[in-house]
């Protein structure tokens, strides 16, 4: 145990923090940290938590209609995991001083965001496959480096989450594989889903490096480890061979292996649509938040009852003590 011999000054605190970051060490909840580091982390972890719970909706929507009991069971386990991930992440964000209720209020009011990918609709059963394969696939590429994020609670939450995400990605691939080996209608359903989800998945990595203003800080603080474009390329390189196994065509005529760079080259992304959806003019933005808020509001009386009961029980304990 280190006993500090003098009261630390702001300058000391900053240099301790910088030293920890430089040594690739972990910042823990009771450690001093710069306000902007804290604010950036709260924003990022809350957005991640919100994405998990909003992300339950597009697939949750198909639970009652899953076409086999085994698929139903696997999808239910997956959606349950998402709720669990939400719990880990809210807990991690709470260590930075914002309560889950505050974060939910910000989600409902639009003050905090969730991943824009969940504003697209799930039109057919095959969409559950495409989400698992592409969206969870992209999430893993984004998240694996976060297991080494400089903030301890976040890194530890991500380690637990990443373990489960790879099962999610495999179940998505498995849904598509069954369809790709199925009837002509099933094959068409799988291709249609991939056509719709491919480009939005690529956009999950965020704007091109030149247009990503917050990235530099996050890199410097050891929250982010790779640039948006690097991660996007990694995802494409990982996914193209899997598409070949599935026998599904990715909807990009410019996609090709580039011998020189050792990577797949792909077409330009249409950011105008991404920005429109981000702005709130997406097919499901309003519906997703409405439904989330309705669940929260409809459940207010339940939470109040639980609080009242706990208080009564505590009073009874005290009386009998």
């Amino acid at each position, binding site marked *: 145990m280190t006993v500090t011999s003098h009261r630390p000054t702001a300058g000391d605190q900053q240099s301790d923090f910088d030293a920890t970051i430089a040594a690739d060490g972990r910042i823990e909840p009771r450690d001093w940290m710069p306000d902007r580091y804290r604010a950036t982390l709260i924003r990022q972890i809350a957005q991640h938590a919100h994405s998990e719970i909003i992300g339950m909706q597009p697939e949750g929507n198909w*639970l*009652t*209609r899953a076409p086999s009991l085994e698929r139903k*069971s696997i999808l239910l*386990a997956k959606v*349950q995991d998402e709720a669990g991930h939400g719990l880990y992440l809210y807990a991690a964000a709470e260590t930075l001083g914002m309560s889950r209720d505050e974060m939910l209020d910000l989600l409902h009011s639009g003050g905090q965001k969730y991943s824009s990918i969940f504003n697209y609709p799930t039109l057919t059963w095959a969409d559950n496959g495409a989400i698992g394969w592409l969206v969870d696939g992209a999430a893993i590429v984004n998240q694996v480096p976060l297991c080494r994020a400089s903030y301890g609670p976040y890194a530890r939450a991500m380690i637990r989450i990443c373990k489960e995400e790879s099962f999610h990605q495999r179940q998505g691939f498995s849904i598509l594989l069954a369809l790709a080996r*199925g009837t002509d209608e099933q094959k068409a359903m799988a291709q249609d889903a991939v056509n719709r989800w491919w480009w939005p998945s690529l956009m999950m990595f965020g704007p091109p490096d030149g247009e990503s203003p917050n990235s530099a800080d996050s890199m410097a603080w050891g929250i982010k480890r790779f640039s948006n474009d690097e991660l996007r390329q990694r995802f494409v390189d990982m996914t193209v061979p899997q598409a070949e196994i599935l026998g599904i065509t990715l909807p990009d005529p410019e996609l090709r292996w580039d011998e020189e760079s050792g990577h797949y080259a792909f077409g330009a992304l249409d950011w105008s649509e991404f920005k429109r959806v981000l702005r709130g003019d997406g097919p499901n933005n309003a519906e997703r938040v409405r*439904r989330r808020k309705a669940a929260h509001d409809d459940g207010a009386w339940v939470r109040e*009852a*639980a609080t009242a009961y706990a208080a009564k029980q505590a009073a009874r304990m005290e009386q009998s003590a």
Partner: protein
Amino acid sequence: YSPLVDLTLRLGDDALVLSQRLMEWVASAPVLEEDVAIANIALDLLGQGRMLISYAGSIMSPPKSEDELAYLRQAREFRSSHLVEIPRGDFAQTMARQLVFSTYQSLLYAELTHSTDATIAAIAAKASKEVRYHLDHATQWVLRLGDGTDESHERMQAGLDVVWPYVDELFDADSGVEVYDGPQTDEKLRPLIDAGVCPDFGALREPCIDQLTAVIETATLTVPQTKWHARGGRRGVHTSDLDFLLAEMQSVHRAYPGATW
């Protein structure tokens, strides 16, 4: 159905249908912890349903797969009780139903653990552990809501009032009803009871009501009175809710005849 198929379908269809109803809560629960808990209970029930329905299918001739039985039967061929079919209602009503169903299941599976049918005994042994958790979860919520705020007390009582007429069907399915198309459904299981495959369901009624009464009264609530009770599910006479539930559940499967998933 043979008596053994009938019995396993009664158990399996109850689990499958209730699991389906619980899934409707996912992403709509009052707190995130309940999204996890309810999904968990739904998963357990789905697992039980799959084991029981698969077993039923394996002893039919010709044998049928779990998916054939889940997705290609008409409502008239289901053997679920009305209790599991009715809509979920609010959170209090869902917990009222869960309390009743888990109490019933815990008593039933405790008996079935000693079934002379080894498959049923094994399924019951596994399920018993799960049901203990379900029962504890529902009990905790009935206590919290019953003894929480005025509003939650009122809603919890209303939830119990809604589900109470569906309790008796679990124990003496058709007693007092003239059935035109065969024996009364409680008679159908007689050979299995005599052979020690399953208990006499009627005998479970009193301990079940006793247990429920204890929880309800601790929760400062009143055991409802009712002048009618549901009947018919065990011979395929269901609520109209079941048919809507199946229309949704079977929709994708039926839209692609012959496909595998």
